[in-house]
């Protein structure tokens, strides 16, 4: 059996085969600001109480602190609900981005079935959980019943061989895969990432991979637990867990064997995530703004990669570099380690932990004709502001190098 089959068989209490529609019991249900929308449907459904308060995690990250009165009202309605239902796992707006905070706080365990009202819920696959994004109304049904209908997906396995040359990272790998597969190349599938490249990746890198697996349409992305996973979870959870992995002879729809040795830093051109080219083919394009952050690349390792490029140097006055730590834990680490001060000295604007400008709500929107290079996950038209602006996606090293040069730059050439 595949990993997806095993998790969904356990969750549905019967053998789950690809194509089957099962009613699955949910282990963990996450919502951010859109809990306000979930809440509305939940009340309409008429359930007396939530199915299991322990299994619901709520926080705010998309518009924090509230950037409009309406956003504040949304926050308020959720806070009132949390209080009334006495929900124990509520982090309000202090902790950062959901996909960073849930693992940090020990909510995510290998083998779990997790749903979240956010498309990048696939991130938790980095811990060997089957994790996928759902809508607000079906989340209301999950709150009421603890169950959700799901189609058992086929599996695509990506066997990633070779060795990445510094400063090429997980972001470059996943952008490369999305470019090869196309924005719908993995539609409805569970994407398994295995092989030496994945084995040598940090947890942070694996989170980046699983996070963006949904940009090629994957229902879930997964990397399987190992010693690094064990080390990460140690001290964050006291719960027992057993890794769930695919069997050797599992029925995998397709295996993609790739050798990534010599891979260049990758950049996704506007206005689609699969419009990917190696950085050397697009150096010299001027940028007005550079963003380092998001659930894709706002972790300690990402800030460090940027700081290594920027250390002791100054970005030009005509470039805005916005750094958004993914969580309070990351923020504190950056402060304590001196990374934050170094970035600010280089000219960065550091914001509070959260989604930042990624989804075009606030904290660095683009004017018509402006160009931004970002470590975020989407470059759709109008994503970060004006429909006449452009967003390019790249790794923290490439974004830092580009901020320094005021144009898209190859981090291999800019490094000290």
């Amino acid at each position, binding site marked *: 059996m595949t990993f997806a089959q095993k998790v969904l068989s356990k969750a549905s209490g019967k053998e789950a085969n690809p194509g089957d529609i099962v009613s699955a019991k949910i282990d963990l249900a996450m919502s951010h600001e859109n809990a306000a*929308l979930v809440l509305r449907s939940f009340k*309409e459904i008429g359930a007396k109480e939530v199915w299991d308060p322990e299994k619901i995690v709520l926080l705010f990250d998309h518009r924090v602190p509230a950037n409009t009165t*309406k956003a504040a009202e949304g926050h308020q309605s959720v806070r009132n609900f949390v209080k009334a239902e006495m929900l124990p796992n509520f982090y309000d707006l202090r902790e950062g981005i959901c996909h960073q905070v849930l693992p940090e706080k020990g909510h995510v365990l290998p083998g779990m079935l997790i749903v979240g009202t956010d*498309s990048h819920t696939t991130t938790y696959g980095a811990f060997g959980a089957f994790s996928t994004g759902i809508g607000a109304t079906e989340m209301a049904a999950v709150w009421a019943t603890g169950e959700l209908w799901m189609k058992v997906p086929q599996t695509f396995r990506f066997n990633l061989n070779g060795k990445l040359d510094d400063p090429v990272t997980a972001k470059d790998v996943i952008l490369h895969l999305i470019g090869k597969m196309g924005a719908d190349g993995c539609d409805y599938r569970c994407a398994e990432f295995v092989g030496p490249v994945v084995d040598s990746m940090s947890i942070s890198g694996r989170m980046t991979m699983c996070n963006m697996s949904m940009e090629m349409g994957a229902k879930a992305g997964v990397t399987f637990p190992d010693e690094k996973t064990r080390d990460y979870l140690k001290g964050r959870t006291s719960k027992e867990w057993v890794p769930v992995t695919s069997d050797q002879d599992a029925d995998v729809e397709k295996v993609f064997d790739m050798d990534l040795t010599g891979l260049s830093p990758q950049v996704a051109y506007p206005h689609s995530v699969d419009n990917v080219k190696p950085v050397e083919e697009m150096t010299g394009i001027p940028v007005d703004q550079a963003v380092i952050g998001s659930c894709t690349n706002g972790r300690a390792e990402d800030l460090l990669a940027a700081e290594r490029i920027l250390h002791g140097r100054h970005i030009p006055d005509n470039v805005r570099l916005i750094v958004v730590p993914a969580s309070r834990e990351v923020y504190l680490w950056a402060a304590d380690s001196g990374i934050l001060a170094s970035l600010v000295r280089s000219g960065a604007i550091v914001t509070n932990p959260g989604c930042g400008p990624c989804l075009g709500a606030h904290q660095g929107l683009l004017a018509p004709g402006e160009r931004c290079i970002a470590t975020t996950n989407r470059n759709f038209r*109008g994503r970060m502001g004006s429909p006449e602006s452009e967003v390019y996606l790249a790794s923290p090293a490439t974004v830092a190098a580009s901020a320094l040069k005021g144009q898209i730059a190859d981090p291999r050439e800019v490094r000290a």
Partner: protein
Amino acid sequence: MKGKVWKYGDHVNTDVIIPGRYLDDYDFKNMAKHAMEDLDPKFAKDVSYGDIIVAGRNFGCGSSREQAPLALKHAGVGAVVAISFARIFYRNAINIGLPVIEFDATGMFEKGDVALINMEKGIIVNETSGRTSRFEPLPAFLLEILKEGGLVPHSAKRFR
């Protein structure tokens, strides 16, 4: 159902269906005013009740925002017919009661043609040209959710 056709290409994403800058407002009427704004600024102004969107591959890719199908539904859209859908959009559409049909109708319709659709029988007709095609109807339990107006009324039955 019957309506005038709006035609779009591949990978129509949730950010152009309803841009992130409008997501703080949970009033669906306001949201509908910005439907498709970044792709086709004329759409929200000119769409009529019951109109049908015909599109290419991977319709609704991107965010899990349920506001995307909600904006279309409240703008008056009667159904979306696309070669394929991104999975969260597809689920959301059914859950909020917006009919979605996985079928390649791009060669069969021009913008402004009148489409007639029978969901249960799986028949789609271009009344302007007279062409008729068949599609695989949705599984019965999804049709039932749609008929009841979405997942909320469907689930509410359990708690009555």
